[in-house]
């Protein structure tokens, strides 16, 4: 009966293709939008994740996420170093500032000042070495940042940018994770950073440290005992993620996903009902010939499952292809479709096809066998 059902489905090629396409489109929209959303929000933790050595982050109470950070008083470092359970603690400078490239373009950049003695927070490199940044006037930039500062050119040593009347030479390309803000990420030494932001009274944005205790417990203790905020490395990533989530960033994605789901579901169900109605006489005939409702349910389930599997595979394929293609955009590099997104999308599609099959089945149960005698 299953193969019979599939044969009947395939015979109505137009509706068959239309339903597969509807599921494919919905699957594509959901996977594409959800993975961009996850990747996008995930970027809010990029620079936290990149400081691999630290498992503890301490900041001003007003600082709610990495990108909107207010500097700490300079005496904070000594206090933090005195807290029991802290193995080590170093300052990390983070400031967004305007820069002018050597060919005259104005760009806002994120400047990260790495502690010169411990080199904590030094990024992994794509091209060149990180060492030159500890010499005055040198900086390294992330690949997306290079593209924004010097569009269309490949890396050449010696290009420079100017910040507050001081020139910085780009000596390499880092492998820094793409930031949520989309701004170029420049790594310099803490000394260079302090000179560039001369005049500010506070320079330390974060204190990053390490503990061998449970970092979540210790950070809770610090938050209670001082008036700073403290997080574990993962805790601060989650905090930054939830901060943007709370800012309504996901709304536009949710809307697109909801449209994908609604249109996919409505169109598929509608088309399936039309398919049932057009085949009503044949289905009624099957009932007269002794095909039970149970057998018909299996038939409809097989049809709905077939449409779902084909549509889902096609949609996932397209989503994967599109994701692969758009990772060349610097801002979206590292974009991928998490398996959770595929699983969630499959669950949605399974639900749509189950509901569709159920609605179809309800129509089928209402077909009266006696009508086959009427022309």
């Amino acid at each position, binding site marked *: 009966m299953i193969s*019979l059902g599939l044969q009947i489905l395939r015979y109505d090629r137009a509706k068959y293709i239309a339903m597969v396409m509807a599921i494919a489109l919905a699957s594509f929209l959901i996977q594409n939008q959800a993975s961009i959303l996850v990747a996008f929000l995930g970027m809010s933790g990029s620079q936290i994740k990149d400081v691999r050595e630290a498992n503890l982050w301490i900041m001003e109470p007003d600082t709610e996420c990495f990108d909107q950070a207010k500097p700490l008083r300079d005496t904070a470092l000594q206090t933090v170093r005195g807290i029991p359970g802290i193995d080590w603690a170093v300052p990390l400078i983070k400031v967004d500032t305007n820069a002018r490239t050597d060919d005259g373009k104005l760009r806002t950049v994120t400047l990260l000042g790495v502690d010169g003695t411990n080199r904590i927070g030094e990024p992994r490199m794509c091209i060149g070495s990180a060492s030159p940044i500890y010499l005055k006037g040198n900086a390294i930039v992330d690949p997306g940042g290079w593209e924004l500062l010097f569009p269309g050119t490949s890396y050449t040593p010696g290009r420079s940018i100017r910040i507050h009347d001081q020139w910085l030479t780009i000596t390499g390309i880092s492998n820094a994770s793409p930031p949520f803000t989309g701004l170029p990420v420049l790594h310099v030494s803490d000394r260079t950073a302090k000179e560039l932001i001369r005049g500010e009274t506070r320079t330390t944005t974060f204190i990053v440290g390490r503990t061998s205790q449970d970092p979540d417990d210790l950070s809770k203790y610090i938050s209670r005992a001082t008036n700073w905020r403290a997080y574990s490395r993962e805790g601060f990533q989650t905090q930054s993620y939830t901060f943007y989530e709370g800012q309504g960033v996901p709304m536009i994605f949710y809307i697109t996903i909801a449209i994908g789901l609604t249109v996919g579901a409505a169109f598929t169900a509608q088309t399936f009902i039309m398919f049932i109605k057009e085949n009503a006489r044949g289905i009624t*005939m*099957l009932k007269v*010939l*002794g095909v039970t409702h149970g057998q018909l349910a299996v038939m409809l389930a097989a049809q709905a499952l077939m449409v779902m599997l084909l549509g889902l595979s096609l949609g996932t394929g397209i989503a994967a292809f599109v994701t692969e293609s758009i990772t060349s955009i610097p801002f979206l590099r590292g974009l991928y479709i998490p398996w959770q997104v595929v699983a969630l999308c499959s669950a949605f599609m399974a639900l749509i096809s189950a509901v569709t099959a159920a609605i179809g089945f309800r129509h089928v149960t209402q077909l009266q066998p006696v009508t086959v*005698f009427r022309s």
Partner: protein
Amino acid sequence: MTSPDSTAVSCHGIRKSFGTGDTKIDVLRGIQFEAHRGEMTFLVGPSGCGKTTLISVIAGLLDPSEGKVSIFGQQLAKMTSRDQILFRRKNLGFVFQQYNLLPALTAAENAAVPLLAAGVNRSTAVKRSKEILDRLGMASRADNYPRTLSGGQQQRVALARALVHEPRLIICDEPTAALDHKSGESVMELLATSAVHPDRAVVVVTHDNRVFHFADRITHMEDGIITHTEQNPKLQAA
């Protein structure tokens, strides 16, 4: 003479009305009807006299308002709906005026449906249906889709479908009405030669008097009642 145990279908006091109040119509008004194994019984009468309604009741597809139907001694009305379906699947074959073939299936697949419904595997079912199609002169058309077949050929596929599971009762409603005389004659010929069997009863509803000579028994119906029955009209004609 027919012995009592040769009775395949027996109807007693069947009444059926549709609607209520002013719009109520009494379509069957106390029907006594019998069909016997080994015979082809014709049910004839003017259009609208209630023939289709009666065979729908016999097949268990329509509940009578009153009266009792038994098929091979069993009353469908007393069965659960599932048992009715299983009974129909095993014991009944149908041929309609509209051939009622599934357009998505080939001739052989269409004819195999009763076997597939009974859980016979596909290749065995199709093989059996091809054997029947062969007997009905349709071997070369077994893999054709209904839309590529003529009316007479489609009706032969429908006939194969009615025979494939070797049911004990075959019910035909105006099987020749949509066909020209020649095709109608040959379908009736095939029905008489392939369907009639000592253990099987065949009931044919028709108002096509050109095919009356195929009948073993003709039951005349008019305005919801059986008027009279002729036995062995073939012998009488001879």
